[in-house]
């Protein structure tokens, strides 16, 4: 049995851990609100953009379509763009993203494709390096900026499109968490390049739409923008997911710490009582002996 002093030390240490997790939980809760608002504010742009894309893509098809829509004609080399968080303390979020990415990589390798990785965020680096050390194309660092926004998405998209133009890969997939609630963030795999043809017809219907300059030129401008928007959306989802997961994980940690403190306090009081009882028995026994 641990001594009284040791027990007291442990209780204090668990108490200070609880303070930290509680603070982190409250910070995450505050940040989550902001991240959710940002994610919601970005939705109209994405919706309108895919609406425009749908109406354009249905008009431009065949060989005249830009490379980003058409693809390179082969699907041998795949690039997995994995969006992870920069900070830990968010439960199993990063582990789940990495698991999804690895599962996709395994599935592609089984089909005989080449797989490489493009990592965004710090926390995916180590676990993916362990299994695929030679296949990491690039690591994009988002930890230097406080709130990764459209500029980062732009940089990533430009870099990706440049690599695509150079022929470094044929197909790119985006792996990122979708924020459902503070309790659930689902890792998702979406095709990023070539841009998948949006479903459904454009809303313009039969109306003759005039294009300036031309359909192809507009589409050529629009596709990189679409990729950017996808990445931007992924960054926002990541932010919300990170805070949500962090909030839940820290809530659990705080509760566990509370339970542990209760248990240790009971143990401490019992040993104290036992010590007092022993002392009393010793004194009484001593007095009786006289």
């Amino acid at each position, binding site marked *: 049995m641990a001594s009284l002093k040791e027990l007291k030390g442990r209780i204090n240490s668990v108490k200070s851990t609880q303070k930290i997790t509680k603070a982190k939980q409250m910070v995450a809760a505050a940040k989550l609100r902001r991240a959710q608002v940002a994610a919601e504010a970005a939705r109209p742009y*994405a919706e309108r953009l895919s609406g425009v894309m749908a109406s354009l893509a249905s008009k431009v098809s065949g060989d005249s379509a830009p490379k980003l829509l058409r693809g390179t004609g082969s699907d041998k080399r795949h690039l997995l763009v994995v969006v992870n968080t920069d900070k830990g303390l968010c439960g199993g979020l990063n582990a789940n993203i990495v698991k999804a990415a690895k599962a996709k990589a395994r599935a592609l390798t089984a089909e005989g494709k080449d797989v490489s990785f493009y990592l965004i965020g710090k926390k995916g680096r180590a676990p993916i390096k362990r299994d695929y050390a030679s296949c990491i194309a690039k690591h994009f660092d988002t930890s230097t900026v406080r709130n990764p926004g459209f500029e980062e998405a732009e940089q990533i998209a430009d870099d990706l499109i440049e690599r695509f133009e150079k022929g470094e890969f044929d197909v790119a997939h985006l792996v990122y968490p979708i924020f459902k609630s503070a309790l659930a963030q689902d890792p998702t795999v979406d095709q990023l390049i070539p841009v998948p043809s949006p479903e459904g017809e454009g*809303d313009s219907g039969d109306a003759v739409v005039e294009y300036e*300059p031309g359909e192809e030129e507009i589409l050529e401008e629009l596709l990189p923008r679409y990729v950017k928007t996808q990445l931007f959306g992924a960054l926002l989802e990541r932010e919300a997911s990170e805070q949500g997961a962090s909030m839940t994980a820290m809530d659990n940690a705080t509760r566990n710490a509370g339970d542990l403190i209760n248990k240790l306090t009971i143990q401490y009081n019992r040993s104290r009582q036992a010590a007092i009882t022993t002392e009393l028995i010793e004194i009484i026994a001593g007095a009786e002996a006289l």
Partner: protein
Amino acid sequence: MALHFELVTPAKLVRSEEVHMVVVPGTEGEFGVLEGHAPFMSTIRDGEVQVYKTEGAAPETIEVRGGFAEVGDKGLTVLAEHVEG
């Protein structure tokens, strides 16, 4: 006579309102959009979008960078990459 005008950036929906006329800086020249404009789509260059709330009123200018404008049944939608201010 009102034109539904929406200005959207990736970060947020900047404007969504009924206006009289909007002048958009298209790549191949500025164009004004009134209610009932034919379906039209154009890329835009960096410049000012002028919003006329009512006929003859002084225009409100919004600086935009990169993007495109779409005119449909539902009005004018400007998707811009950046909006100043």
